């Protein structure tokens, strides 16, 4: 459903992605990991066209992202995205956060959008908070609302950029549980994360990046049991031993 072919990208003179290729099938869960600055965030921002690419091709459900004819807002409406820093809209209630894009981009009626929002809030365990403002929620609660907000567009795939990195340890699991349930429902997911327990349990494949390159792209079990590259082995030993 998502193919990334020989993608390269620079910010000015800095090379951030070099010749990256991978593919994600419908219903597949791919975890992306690697050291900070290795280009993970940039890669997933390229997938929904938030960052332009310099070379290569990205195709999402048959649509080439970098194509000049591609209607980017329309494409992005079909891909959910969840950020490390939640990025809920602080001037809107939880319900307003969730219904904004369905109303504006999908032209749903307010009543339809609110109904769907309530269902989704139920699903992420936040139905008691519909009228709260983000500032009155904990980090874990905000992130669960952010996931509901992304799901409100009925996306064909979800992109997660370190969704638990900004959370206090006791809140990480409530977010991972929501993501695990989503994976079990068959959602196509690309998840940038350092939660290796989650990766082991949920991911079909692990992509390891270093210095803008995809160094390793293997089935989960292979990645953890016999990483092919020294860099992945080093990374794993560091991250699994604290």
């Amino acid at each position, binding site marked *: 459903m998502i193919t990334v072919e020989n993608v390269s990208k620079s910010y000015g003179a800095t090379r951030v992605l070099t010749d990256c290729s991978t593919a994600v099938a419908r219903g597949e869960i791919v975890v992306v990991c690697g050291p900070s600055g290795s280009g993970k965030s940039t890669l997933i921002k390229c997938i929904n066209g938030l960052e332009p690419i310099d070379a290569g091709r990205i195709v999402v459900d048959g649509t080439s992202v970098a194509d000049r004819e591609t209607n980017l807002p329309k494409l992005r409406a*079909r891909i959910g995205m969840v950020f490390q820093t939640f990025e809920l*809209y602080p*001037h809107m209630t939880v319900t307003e956060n969730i219904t904004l894009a369905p109303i504006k981009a999908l032209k749903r009626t307010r009543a339809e959008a609110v109904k769907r929002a309530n269902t989704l809030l139920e699903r992420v365990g936040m139905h008691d908070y519909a009228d709260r403002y983000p500032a009155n929620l904990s980090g874990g609660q905000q992130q669960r609302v952010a996931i509901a907000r992304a799901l409100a567009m009925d996306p064909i795939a979800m992109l997660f950029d370190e969704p638990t990195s900004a959370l206090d340890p006791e809140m990480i699991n409530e977010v991972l549980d929501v993501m695990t349930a989503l994976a079990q429902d068959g959602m196509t997911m690309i998840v940038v994360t350092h939660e290796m327990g989650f990766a082991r349990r949920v991911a079909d494949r692990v992509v390891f990046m270093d210095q803008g390159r995809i160094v390793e792209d293997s089935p989960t079990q292979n990645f953890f049991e016999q990483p092919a590259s020294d860099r992945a082995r080093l990374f794993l030993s560091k991250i699994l031993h604290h």
Partner: protein
Amino acid sequence: MTHFDLAYVVSTLPLLWDGMQTTALLTVISLAGGLALGMMLAVLRLSRLRLVALAAATYVNLIRALPLLLLIFWFYFLVPLLVGRPVGGYTAALIGFVLFEGAYFCEIIRSGIQSVRRGQIMAGLASGLTYGQTMRSIVLPQALRNMLPMLLTESINLFKGTALVYVVGVRDFLTAASVTGTRDNTLVEMYILVALVYFLLCLAASLSVSRLQRRYAV
């Protein structure tokens, strides 16, 4: 003047009221013009086209380096030499205010927009909104709330600043009071009254904005 004569003060009110209307009109027109110009300049300053951004920045920095009075004098004394006929105190002052306030409002609006985190734009775009929708629904409401205190302060400055029209012979509130006070030898009463009115109006303005802010606070 040994005591405050209420009957006398009441007798001066029609003249002062005329002056206050002029002050209010000057403030409102300059505010509208200054905000419109400021908004345009802010958009230009945030433009990705370097030359456009530079031109707007140059204007803003140049204007902010000049005394307002000088701008008014330019239009009052120099522009008539160019166009061959007098501009008039009222028009000269208005043009001066708009050009001057535009530069200050530009900086307030620009910093307001920049105070909204970039991730908010990312989130809006990622959800499928267009850039325009993201700006309107997500960035501008937050920017406006962040810049409200500074917009108010600048508007109060403008309101008080309109008293400068004195020098080009426009009869605003302060001028009306001066004229009356000089005529009746009651400058003490008049200037106390003027101070009181300015103070109360500015106080009311700040109070109403802090209420507004509390209501929309997050």
